[in-house]
């Protein structure tokens, strides 16, 4: 399933990285931050994102406590409505990766998760590799099973796009121009292949 997911996600211009655990995921994140040369980052305060950010703070990639310093980018978990507007990169966690369509699926009910994945030009999504499912239908079932109803379920497939002028495909309209997906294996476990 991972192979198909990767193929389909890349076909819609997402970049897919597989990480053996949070440590590797943090490393991949550091690489993206470096490559994108961002000064300001906004992040959704969620378990896996916070874990990776803490590792990067320890490694000195990010300044501690969200302060810009020593040429290191600043990262914000709060006040995102104001901070996301001019941030260069947003980090969020998505629960599922859908193989057939190369999509991510996640409950984006929190305002933070939506702001970080819509406003900045680069979106990095952390996804547990145990969250690989085959089809969008399966993803819907996971979220709506057992009588639950998420407030705002998002499927995200690649960066935003348009073909509205002369049908020429152009990446990056209102949403992100680039989407990085880091699939994170459980520590010790192999994840869902």
């Amino acid at each position, binding site marked *: 399933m991972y192979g198909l997911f990767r193929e*389909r996600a890349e076909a*819609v211009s997402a970049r897919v990285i597989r990480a053996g655990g949070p440590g590797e995921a943090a490393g991949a994140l550091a690489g993206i931050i470096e490559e994108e040369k961002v000064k300001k980052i906004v992040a959704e305060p969620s378990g896996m994102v916070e874990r990776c950010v803490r590792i990067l703070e320890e490694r000195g990639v990010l300044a501690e406590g969200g302060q810009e310093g020593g040429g290191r980018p600043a990262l914000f978990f709060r*006040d*995102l*409505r*104001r901070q996301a*507007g001019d941030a260069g990169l947003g980090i969020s966690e998505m629960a599922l990766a*859908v193989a*057939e*369509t*190369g*999509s991510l699926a996640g409950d984006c*009910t*929190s*305002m933070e998760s*939506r*702001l970080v*994945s*819509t*406003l900045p030009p680069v979106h990095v999504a952390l996804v547990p590799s145990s969250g690989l499912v085959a*089809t*969008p*239908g399966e993803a*819907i*079932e996971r979220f*709506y099973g057992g009588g639950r*109803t*998420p*407030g*705002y*379920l*998002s*499927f*995200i*497939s*690649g*960066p*935003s*796009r*348009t*073909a*509205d*002028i*002369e*049908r*020429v495909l*152009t990446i*990056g*309209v*209102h*949403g*992100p121009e680039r989407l990085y997906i880091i699939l994170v294996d459980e520590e010790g476990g192999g994840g869902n292949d």
Partner: protein
Amino acid sequence: MTEGFRERIAAALDNQNLRRALGNFADAYLGARENAYQGKDFEAIRRKIAGIKKGAAENMEELAHRFTRAAEKAGAVVYRASTPEEARDYIKNLAQARGVKSVVKSKSMVTEEIHLNRSLKEAGIEVRETDLGEWIIQLSGQKPSHMVMPAIHMTRGEVAGVFSAETGKELSDEIPVLVKVAREELRQKFLAAGMGISGANIAVAETGTIVMVTNEGNGRLTTTLPPLHVAVVGLDKLVSSIGDVAPILEALPRSATAQHMTSYVTMITGPVPAMDRAGNPVEKEMHIVLLDNGRTKMASDPVFKEALQCIRCASCLNVCPVFQLVGGHVYGHVYTGGIGTILTAFHHGLEKAESIQSLCLGCERCKAFCPAGIDIPALIRELRARITGRKGLPAGSRFLLETVLPSRSLFHGLIKAASAAQKPFVREGGYVRHLPLFLAGLTRGRSLPAIAGRPFRDVAGSLPAPRNPGERIGFFAGCLIDFVYPRIGEAVHKILAGMGCRVVFPPGQTCCGLPASYMGAPGPAARIARQNIAAFGEDCRYILTACPTCATFLKRDYPRLLREDGEWAGRAERFAARVVDFSSFVSREGFRPAGGFAGTRITYHDSCHLKRNLGVFREPRELLAGAGYDLVEMKWPDRCCGFGGSYSMRFPEVSRSILEAKIKDITETGARVVATDCPGCLLQLAGGLDAGGRREIRAAHTAELLCE
């Protein structure tokens, strides 16, 4: 015809940008769509969607109640609007009550249907379309020309002009630059807007969820940044349960834009957290306007309820030969193309659909692609019948249908008279090059064949029969073979006789009746059907025709026309069951062509009716290849040739333009011969080749080619 209709058609045909854009797209779409569906069972998906949406249409009222309860439970406010006016007023009053100064909108056809922007603007509220295509349209004061790609008719240069005027800067026409401008300009509007208005692609009764399928990201912004979200949802968007979403998502992006999935699919249930500009949490409000505007009336209509199954993918436009030529503007309203004709009739009034219904050629291509299983051409025929039923036929047509068609001798007499009258205009080779004055439109770009000196009916009796005849086959000629191409009838006769069949030609037969039906006159069509059924009696094993249009009508429509006509219902069923088309019959019965045509390069044009109504396309190819012809496929062999019977007379310009594309595809194969199974296509193709100066390419019916 409504005022300006013909002018709009002429203008569209003259618009080279539009023609190029739509033409390129039409070609690219087919392949891309096919790729997107790879590994999928389209027929199974569409059966599922048709089932889901059919059930929803039948229970619309109940679903609306369930949806309302569930959405309210989740914290949304649901307002049921019967008319566009009620919907507009509700939204306007809400905006005013909340002190909203500016509104951002993501793409929604239903808000166009109710002319929402105009009413908000009149109330002094600024409205911004944020879908790139819609924004271009809004800024340039135009109308969308396509359901999915509203600005497909505009070039990058035109867009640069529009954006330059808006921003006061001189912008280059590079597309990435233009897209960036839109991002920056509209970002400010998103951040400042007091209200976000969206549509919905699906509304789930079980959970009160709305589903939005988008690509640009504007849908997520519209529903995230403003503290007030209004979703305008047509009642046709309702489905029963959350399990109904996945099948629609499986088809919608694949059919609409040839994507496995759009960039964003968003499923919203009730208001979600929001913040004001300073970042303080605010109470979000979500209002859902459920719009009727003709939809419950449609649901209660035994025929037109089918149109409620539509998921607005626009593939019926993308494959329609007429739409490909003229685009959306000629349709004059929000919903365009074949399905748009039906929707216009219900949402904007029957009279508004009167002109545009006549644009449909009846080629049935859209039907083969519709992921919701809607028989669009059948709905258009029904619409036509109702319009005619209300207005009556024009006197000339009535005389033709009610008096001339059923009477073969009168019809023939008139045709003969016409044949004599045309003599002075017949040039060598049997084509009419120029017709006098009022008929001139008929022969521009296409030469018409001369009416035969002796119709088939006069020849039929004297054709040789086999010595020990076997099965009795009734031959149904149809008008074109009878009066224009008796040579096809003779070829069929020769082949069947060679196979040992006893071929009979019941002289009481007349026109198949399809022209009457297409003109919206089911009464005369039924009368003609009874006449033909009586003429053939019950003792032919098969009723064979070499005209797929006749075959379709005899087989599919006779039972339908006579369903409630006492003993005729049964007779029509038995008659229809025995109708076969030439190619599938001789192929099935093991006909072996003589062969000896090795090396003659040939290409095959699929008649719309043969391929899509009768499902026959392999047989004629196998027969021709069996005869030794070297078959090369043209590009899109099943794209309509533009004949469409009397269509080519009503819209000669449209018909001619479609024909030109076909002739080009034929010429590109380098074939010496183009074969087809339909005498109507033959007339069109032969005429187009002749008029286009491609006389070295011969057009012929499959039967003729097999018995040479």
